[in-house]
């Protein structure tokens, strides 16, 4: 039983087809990677799932519920959170506040509680803070807790981006090139985090990544996109043998 089911999704902008007839099954508890050359439609696929784009045709189901026309906040409330490729952090806030913000829908207290800040709101905020500290711990962001996100280095900002998506306590985590533009050491860090997220937290991970070495090493399933079409899928071994994939990546001889 697939966790997240993408069936026959087509996304077109005018005459341009960013995605055509894409089928994907993202299974619970696995790391599924989406790879492909530049402009293949990987990020478009993530945008479709997370509600930023709505497919022209086809359906996206999650646990029997349709996500096809849901808006991003509805999708994230269903338990699918994402990290952006180009940093989309709240740059004027501290790391802590960024993460606290992501807990928005998980905090249940009323407006009046908030205005008077007695009992419930105060207690829930303290619990919330404890939860966020857990994520900070997990992502090893302790030194940066109080610093402004805008002042941090790129690598750390990427980590905050992943941490923020994690703070939503999702079932599925969509990571859009979390390793782009990082050095070897930082990459290894992120890989470790991604694997921990899957193993320790039991979160399903969907990874869009360019670094083939990383993808082949950590993925359980791989989908290869090229010009908006799925040209190959399966375990890393299967994909590595697939002649179409080899052609798309290396070219014909």
């Amino acid at each position, binding site marked *: 039983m697939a966790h997240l089911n993408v069936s026959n999704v087509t996304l077109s902008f005018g005459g341009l087809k960013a995605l055509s007839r894409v089928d994907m099954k993202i299974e619970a508890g696995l790391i599924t990677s989406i790879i492909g050359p530049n402009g293949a439609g990987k990020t478009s696929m993530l945008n479709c799932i997370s509600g930023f784009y709505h497919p022209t045709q086809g359906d996206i189901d999650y646990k029997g519920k349709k996500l096809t026309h849901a808006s991003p906040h509805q999708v994230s409330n269903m338990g699918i959170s994402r990290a952006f490729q180009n940093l989309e952090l709240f740059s004027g806030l501290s790391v802590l506040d960024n993460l606290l*913000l992501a807990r928005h829908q998980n905090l249940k207290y009323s407006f009046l509680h908030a205005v008077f800040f007695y009992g419930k709101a105060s207690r829930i905020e*303290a619990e919330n803070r404890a939860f966020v500290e857990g994520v900070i711990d997990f992502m090893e962001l302790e030194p940066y807790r109080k610093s402004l996100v805008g002042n941090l280095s790129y690598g750390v900002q990427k980590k905050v981006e992943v941490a923020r998506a994690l703070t939503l306590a999702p079932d599925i985590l969509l990571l859009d090139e979390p390793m782009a533009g990082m050095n070897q050491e930082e990459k290894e860090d992120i890989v470790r985090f991604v694997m921990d997220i899957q193993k320790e937290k039991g979160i399903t991970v969907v990874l869009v990544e360019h670094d083939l070495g990383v993808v082949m090493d950590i993925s359980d399933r791989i989908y290869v996109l090229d010009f908006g079409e799925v040209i190959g899928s399966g375990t890393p071994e299967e994909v590595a043998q697939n002649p179409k994939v080899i052609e798309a990546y290396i070219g014909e001889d």
Partner: protein
Amino acid sequence: MSANTWLATGNFYTTYKQEQKTFFTSLDRSVFTFFLIILFAWPLFFPLSNKFMLVIDNTLIAVVAVMGLNLVTGFAGLISIGHAAFVGIGAYTVASFCRTMGDTHIIITHFWPLMIILSGLVGAGFGAIVGLPALRLKHLYLAIATLSFQMIFQWVINFMTFFNQGQTISVGRVFWFTGKVGRKDHYFFWYYAILVVVILLGFGFRNLLKTRYGRCLIAVRDNDRAADAMGINPGLTKVYAFALAGFFAGVAGALHAYVYRGVGFESFTLHESIGYLAMAIVGGLGTLNGSFWGPVFIKFLDLQMEHLSEAIGQYLPSGMNLTTAMKPFTFGLVIVLFLMYESRGIANWWRITKSYTKLWPFRY
């Protein structure tokens, strides 16, 4: 751990609850309490003339209005150039009660706190309606939408006989436990009333910022795409921001109606809207204390300019009306200077002062 609770020499928190406190050191809290006591006590010892008391009442009303504007423009990042119209909505809520029931009806005179809250709620309702374009519009385009609300408001008031076509609608004197508040004590009484309102709203504002209802505003300002992905409904949040601003403005409007004992449309024109925006900018957008600095600074400046131009005016031919020229001139100059040299407003000076003195007596 025997932490020194008076000076912030380090971080001694052991629970997250402790970090929620509004005042981090006892010194902060005592200074603030002392300041409040002074605010309450000074009129008893230094009675001012009605004219100056009115200026001070006016300033406090502006503080309430600017707090609202700061929420929508400073925190939620939605420029509103129709804020005076929201203030007007509050004032005209009181006025319409006066028109229908008579200006000395018991609801107006005895239940004025209820009237103030009601005006706030009506303001919030209108705020939510005016906030609807924010679902689609952004930045400058949204500003134009709020401007159109300002225009619609002025036209409606000017052309409806119910609102006396913008001419003054009088509001009766209120009663306190001691009886009717007379002419002599009027501004004095309202000083305290408004001060209490400012303090209550100020604390409400402060608390809101510590919770999800405040954070979602900042999220929408900084990056509404990411906010959306983080489970915050950006459209709803924007409408909510306008409703909050409308509430503050409505309360300010009701207070204005009571203090002036009348409502006329010229207090709620575009000019006033720009004034509120200027106060918010000079005070510091996106800060709570900026909502206090801004109005105080601008109103005080206005007063001083009046004095100055009166003094200079004695040596000039009587045909030259210096006051009318000087006020807009200094007003404009101050805004330009602030935008150029201190775009984060007076609140930034406050922040710098605090961070310098934080570790006293140690240097770092």
